[in-house]
């Protein structure tokens, strides 16, 4: 889509709602070239409103994960910038915590030490950091598994360890890279509930990468749709869903279904491309 700006303006959805505070994260004209001349992102611009959950969604190879890692300060942008709390991002910072798709747990450390690891790196004394870790182990329903090792846990439990570790450092912004991709569907739904509950208590700003449209609509306040070749923002959707209903009511509500339909409409052309030329998928997102 060459006319990304016009499209986003037409729906008038991106950016903070009128009267909201300064966005927690501003992604401005981000461009990323990989060695060998592959352009992963071009002119990606969007805002992440504070205290809300923003999802990045798009076909594989659209640069969702690349964008998230640039925001995390893990990889540098070729051009453009990321602004967090008014400051330009040049590397990782204590106000951002990352949840990894493959969990990234220390295999030689038990749950307690893994959850406390972010605090350990900051030099928090052992008793103090373990007390904090136990608090988040309880919040993520891992009590009783403090002394288990990652290889003794199921995928869902491992990701809860990853989430507890990110929550334990008390960062304002959580960056989640397809956190439920390695978890089966039933656990995934339970996990989405847990996440929404944890977030509503904690008032975190969340950037969430997923390839599941339903998941994106279910958990998000704002959904940024990226297209690929190179990755650009094609649209940003704010589903209008009353969050006070039960999970089933939400999944049957007009707003939920409309948002799923709208996103599917944007992405279906890519799915059809992939079906016709499966060997020509882009670089991994």
């Amino acid at each position, binding site marked *: 889509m060459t006319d990304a700006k016009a499209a986003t303006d037409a729906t008038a959805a991106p950016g903070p709602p009128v009267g909201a505070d300064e966005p927690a994260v501003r992604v401005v004209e981000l461009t990323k070239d990989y060695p060998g001349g592959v352009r992963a992102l071009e002119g990606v611009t969007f805002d992440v409103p504070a205290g809300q959950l923003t999802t990045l969604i798009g076909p594989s190879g659209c640069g969702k994960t690349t964008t998230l890692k640039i925001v995390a*300060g893990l990889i540098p942008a070729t051009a453009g910038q990321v602004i967090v709390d008014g400051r330009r991002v040049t590397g*990782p910072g204590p106000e*951002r915590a990352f949840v990894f798709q493959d969990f990234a747990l*220390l*295999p030689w450390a038990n749950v307690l030490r893994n959850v406390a690891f972010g605090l350990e*790196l900051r030099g928090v004394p052992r008793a103090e950091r373990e007390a904090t870790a136990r608090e988040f182990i309880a919040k993520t329903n891992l009590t009783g598994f403090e002394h288990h090792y990652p290889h003794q846990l199921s995928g869902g439990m491992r990701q809860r360890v990853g989430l507890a570790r990110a929550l334990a450092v008390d960062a304002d912004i959580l960056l989640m890279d397809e956190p439920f991709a390695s978890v089966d569907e039933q656990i995934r739904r339970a996990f989405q509930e847990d996440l929404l509950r944890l977030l509503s208590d904690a008032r975190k700003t969340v950037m969430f990468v997923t390839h599941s449209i339903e998941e994106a609509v279910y958990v998000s306040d704002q959904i940024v749709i990226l297209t690929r070749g190179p990755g650009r923002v094609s649209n940003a959707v704010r589903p209008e869903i009353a969050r006070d209903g039960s999970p089933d009511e939400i999944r049957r509500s007009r707003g939920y279904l409309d948002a799923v339909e709208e996103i599917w409409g944007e992405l279906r052309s890519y799915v059809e491309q992939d079906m016709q030329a499966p060997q020509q998928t882009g670089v991994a997102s």
Partner: protein
Amino acid sequence: MRIAGRRVPMAFSLLVWFALWEVIGRAELVFLIPPFTGVLVAIGDVATSERFADAAMVTLQAFGIGMGLALTVGIGAGFLMGRVRAFGDVLGMWANIFESSPLTAIVPAMMALVGFGLPTMVITVFLFSVWVIALDTQVGVTHVSQSLLEMGRSFGASRRQVLLKIVLLAALPEILAGIRLGLIRGVKGVIIGQLLIAIVGIGYLFERYSRSFLMAEFWALLILVFAFAFAASEAIAYFERKVAFYATTR
């Protein structure tokens, strides 16, 4: 091991070989092979002799210093080779060449350079063991999961913390395997060095026993050296088993 459906300890196979040895020895077929019981008696004699104590001291000293150097240099170089690509390309090639070269040939040249004493033995131990330690460390360090490194950085780890709290521990299974192989090679190195020098340590004792046709003592000494190498490698293997639980799940 199972024989006729019954569990038999692995040591049983050793007993079979010892019995065979005893039979061949008693039959006096080859003078090189004395009866095994004779060798057992000789182990006691050799191990308690003053000559052995002196030789063992000299040998252990050379082995200790050589291994200490090989561990320091090998692990250090392996880290550099694993973390810095340029080092990996340049040093890796040399380490592979030396790892597979017949280093025994260098020992006489070294004698000419640094004499018949401790330095030659130390250098021999070092040269025999350092390469495998460096190469195994490199493998361990290169294969540390990228996402663990990103995790460390995203939680604000300093370079030092990344090395000590993530890379070192993640590479530990390979580093320990390298140390175990390096120890065995170091034992070989110190004995081969001494055999070539022929006037010091355990190597001199081997020379002496074989020249005087003291075959029971010769075999006894060999078993003692083997037992030492085995104990050293088992000690490292013990630690390897301690980290094995995560070696397969990294």
